[in-house]
């Protein structure tokens, strides 16, 4: 059971014993042959805004995509890339051409064969239509079939993160026939994945049937899958207790305590690839001054924020989170930046000429529990250095608009995370070629980001991203607050479910209901 080992290993090496981290989850891996059949009911609080894997950037979409679609490459729960629709791949000596050999005999839900034309269609459409998706594949010049069952990705410059991007949120392969038939794929789904979308009643439930021609023999186990939306998590907790649902993803980590003692349930807890952060606009008032941002970083006690926001079920994190494994800095290099030091913060404030403090506004989305509980803690801590942080409750739709327009001083924020440091940092932090989440510009950081993208040698890449992370910690674009643990519960009768660090629902294809 590699996942379990890795988690324990991680726990012992980091020694970050916060809260109940030492508690190993009673994970249930299938030891007896899985039972086929039955209806599996899974619940969550948020409905998908749309289903098109190439047009909808929301996590609610990405989470559901693996139910109906496959990628060329899939990251397993240890975040190691595994062949999926691509059986193998090779890089040309100049590092500019990647050739993927495709799996044969794979069929889309409508019975059509999966070929290299579909891969080309998928990425042509993505690059044309999707601004967010495109930013994962910026370096890709073109995608060309090389025969029916092979495909070439030609890049403008060496692009080390290609495999990570293919296994990321924007790598799902769609069918040309499906797009022609439905226009967009927001209300329908036509992929090669384990389940076929049969019915969707918005804000109620999606009903999926087992894909009888799924290329992974014997999967999925359940005949039917219902993904139910239950907006109030208290009701999800009740539904788990009373056996009304088989599986739920828990958003509010405090609920772990309510359910962990239930004998009829199996708890799952693991590190998340994503993290929560305090997003700052570095072009606003005193926040322009790096010393002020450093002062904020020294004043915020991240452990305290995490304890309140996640009930202790999480961990502090370097810019590269724990599931990014080899990319994470050694703990002693980043933890020293997280030791609260109010005196140092005050001194920096004085040097920046704002010894008397100032007022900033911080946006919070009321439906995100970690934001709601984390923000007041930060406000209290910043008060100690004279910063008056006013919390603004902003409804999601408005928040999106303001976030896109960079119209905020600060906001609590959360990101699902990315496997590769290029994808994880370039888009967020590059001042001109990315989304520049913090409206900042640090030429040294831009240079490191570009160098990392071009460098193919893993060892050199590692050095670059180590340096980058230190530069980030020094220049404080935003505060990496913590990475909340991923928490799922299933009925004890459910076997074979596995969590994934991205929170995507890859784990349901292997889940079965053991009625005995």
């Amino acid at each position, binding site marked *: 059971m590699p996942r379990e080992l890795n988690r324990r290993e991680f726990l012992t090496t980091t020694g970050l014993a916060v809260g109940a981290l030492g508690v190993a989850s009673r994970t249930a891996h299938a030891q007896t042959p899985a039972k086929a059949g039955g209806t599996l009911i899974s619940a969550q609080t948020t409905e998908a805004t749309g289903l098109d894997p190439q047009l*909808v950037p929301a996590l609610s979409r990405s989470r559901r995509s693996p139910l109906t679609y496959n990628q060329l490459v899939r990251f397993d729960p240890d975040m190691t890339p595994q062949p999926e629709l691509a059986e193998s791949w090779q890089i040309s000596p100049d590092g500019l051409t990647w050739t993927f050999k495709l799996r044969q005999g794979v069929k889309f839900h409508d019975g059509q064969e999966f070929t290299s034309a579909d891969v080309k269609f998928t990425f042509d459409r993505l690059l044309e239509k999707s601004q967010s998706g495109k930013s994962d594949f910026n370096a890709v010049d073109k995608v060309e079939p090389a025969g029916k069952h092979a495909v070439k990705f030609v890049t403008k410059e060496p692009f080390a993160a290609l495999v990570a991007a293919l296994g990321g949120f924007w790598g799902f392969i769609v069918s040309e026939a499906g797009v022609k038939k439905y226009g967009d794929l927001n*209300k329908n789904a036509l992929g090669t994945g384990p389940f076929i979308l049969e019915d969707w009643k918005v804000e109620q439930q999606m009903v999926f049937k087992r894909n009888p021609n799924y290329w992974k023999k014997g999967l999925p186990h359940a005949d039917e899958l219902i993904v*139910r939306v239950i907006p109030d998590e208290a009701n999800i907790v*009740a539904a788990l207790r009373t056996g*009304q649902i088989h599986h739920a993803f828990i958003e509010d980590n405090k609920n772990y305590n309510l359910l962990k003692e239930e004998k009829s349930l199996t708890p799952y807890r693991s590190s998340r690839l994503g993290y929560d952060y305090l997003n700052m606009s570095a072009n606003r008032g005193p926040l322009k001054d790096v010393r002020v941002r450093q002062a904020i970083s020294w004043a915020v006690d991240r452990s305290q924020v995490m304890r309140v926001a996640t009930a202790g079920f999480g961990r502090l994190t370097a810019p590269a989170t724990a599931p990014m494994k080899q990319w994470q800095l050694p703990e002693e290099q980043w933890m020293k930046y997280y030791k609260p030091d109010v005196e140092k913060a005050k001194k920096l404030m004085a040097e920046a000429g704002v010894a008397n403090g100032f007022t900033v506004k911080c946006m919070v989305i009321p439906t995100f529990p970690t934001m709601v509980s984390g923000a007041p803690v930060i406000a209290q801590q910043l008060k100690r250095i004279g910063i008056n942080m006013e919390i603004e409750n902003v409804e*999601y739709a408005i928040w999106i608009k303001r976030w*896109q*327009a960079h119209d905020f001083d600060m906001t609590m924020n959360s990101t699902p995370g990315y496997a590769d440091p290029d994808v994880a940092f370039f888009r967020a932090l590059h001042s001109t070629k990315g989304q520049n989440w913090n409206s900042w510009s640090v030429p040294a950081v831009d240079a490191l980001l570009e160098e990392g993208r071009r460098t193919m040698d893993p060892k050199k890449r590692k050095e670059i991203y180590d340096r980058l992370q230190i530069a980030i910690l020094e220049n404080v674009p935003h505060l990496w607050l913590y990475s909340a643990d991923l928490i799922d519960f299933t009925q004890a009768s459910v076997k074979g479910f596995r969590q994934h660090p991205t929170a995507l629902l890859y784990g349901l294809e292997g889940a079965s209901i053991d009625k005995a």
Partner: protein
Amino acid sequence: MGRYVVVRLYSMALTLMGLSVLVFLMLRLVPGTVVEQLIGADAVVNAAMAAELKRFFGLDQPWWRQYASWLGSLAHGDLGTSWRTGKPVIALILERLPVTLELTAFAVGFALLLGIPAGIVSATRRDRVVDNVTRVGTLLGLSVPVFWQGTMLILFLSIYLRWMPPVVWVDFFADPRRNLTIMLLPALCLGTASAANVARTTRACMLDVLGSEYIRTAAAKGLRPRLVILKHALRNALIPIVTVLGLQIGILLGGTVVVEEVFTLPGVGRLVLWSIYQRDYPLTQSTILFVAVMFMTVNLAVDLLYAYLDPRIRY
């Protein structure tokens, strides 16, 4: 009577016109549009795509032109097409209306079954234990918010009885038993405040009527108390109760928004709520108007019912 109905219909039309303007403008005062919802938080601001979508939804037009075009299609009996689902609004409403109507009907039934007997008993046993208990009970019923009551019921039952209503919705005609199991708690929650209201009104009206002379006469000529109360007193006390009930139905139709959300029932209430979050203007606007028409129709029906209950009333 015919003339009265015509006047009422005329005033209904005026009210609806006013409401349509109000709903239309209020929605547009809320920041954010369907376009941001579609492009999402993670997207790089893509001006071209946003402009294209705005044009597609007609959001690039001035508001009065958008309003006129909505009104125009309403005049043709077309409630419009939902932006987020691509389905006709009327189809979405009709798909969900049975749930809301069933819920409202059960809640009204519960309010009547509990409220009227409680009111009568309370009035006839004035200032005794049973009256005091009822009065405190009704006060509680009126003041406990429905969302809290719903959540507490679910929590309590799931912890202590290991039971909660099934979470996957079943139509009444597909499986009546399961459907009723799902409906029981929501109807109870929704009906509590109404039951309290009906009980209080019944008590007050009964006390009023019981003090009048014809009741004393009826009792004096030796009629059984049961007959006096149910036939002579109750029928005369019914008019205000019916009024309260009529208004309650309107409140209940609105209250279903909260109850449907707490119990995740696929009714019109959740549809409206979702459409507001999604900034699906045609869906929100037309559904609210639809509910308003229902509310007004119920009130008109109640007013017409007076004439039946009290033959002295003429329109």
